[in-house]
């Protein structure tokens, strides 16, 4: 079955086509989201959200870009929405904690290591993932898609709906900022 046929069938609400798309694309969506959320349980929930969105809004996919590009776009948007929501909840939790109602503290797990990282690289990857959270949103998106998902500059540009030169610039600035933050960390350590 070709992808176009599957998409056409999905637009008609065909469950077999949906299953086929989920089975073939779940790894891609999950890995992308995990790169942003850095939490396996949250990443699985948000991956489910993405596929529910795909099922409900596949008619919005007009075929102007590749299906995988559209799916990456939905995944990144959903992951960023989730992070913003979590941030808002954290702020609200801080306010409620002032009134003594902080039964459910929200906090990020401190040390996330991507499960696909080689054993000898784990410490470095942990440090990089921790520092990535501090980057501006668009730099973080470009860097994560390029590094974690292994997309080319052209593919990242398609997902972010911008030019290749803009992506080059974003990734360059992301590297510069990361270098600065990491060297500050080393200066404090030594």
């Amino acid at each position: 079955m070709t992808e176009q046929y599957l998409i056409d069938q999905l637009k008609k609400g065909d469950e077999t086509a949906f299953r086929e798309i989920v089975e073939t694309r779940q790894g891609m969506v999950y890995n992308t989201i995990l790169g942003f959320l850095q939490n396996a349980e949250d990443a699985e929930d948000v991956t489910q959200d993405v596929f529910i969105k795909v099922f409900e809004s596949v008619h919005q996919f007009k075929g102007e870009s590749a299906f995988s590009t559209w799916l990456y776009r939905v995944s990144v948007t959903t992951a960023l929405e989730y992070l913003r929501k979590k941030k808002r909840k954290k702020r609200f939790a801080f306010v409620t904690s002032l009134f003594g109602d902080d039964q459910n503290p929200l906090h990020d797990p401190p040390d996330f290591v991507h499960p696909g990282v080689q054993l000898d690289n784990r410490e470095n990857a942990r440090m990089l993932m921790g520092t990535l959270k501090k980057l501006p949103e668009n730099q973080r998106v470009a860097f994560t898609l390029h590094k974690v998902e292994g997309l080319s500059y052209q593919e990242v540009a398609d997902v972010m709906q911008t030019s290749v030169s803009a992506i080059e610039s974003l990734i360059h600035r992301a590297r510069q900022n990361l270098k600065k933050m990491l060297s500050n960390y080393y200066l404090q350590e030594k």
Partner: protein
Amino acid sequence: MATKQYTEQEIEAILNSLDRVEKASPNPFFYTRLMARMQSSEDNIWSRILQFITKPVFAVGIALVFLLINMYILLNQYSGSVDQAEESTQTLALEYTSLTATIYDNNTETP
């Protein structure tokens, strides 16, 4: 100088630490869990309605509608009350003059 160079090498190694990262995948039976969730969200229509009703946008919207209705009633009542007062005065005057007989009414002499 050597320390600085070492630090730069370390930072470069950190920046490249995700270069050969293997793709992560969700736990087995992901599709089954996804379908279970979709099914439960379809079944639970009342919770969706409740979720919508408890949204601040809905509450503010309802408050605005009530405010507009109140203003409409208030304005109508005010403009209507002037006419009503005038009308009741006229009716009273009419009734008073027609019901109360004067001395001239009782002693009318016909030629």
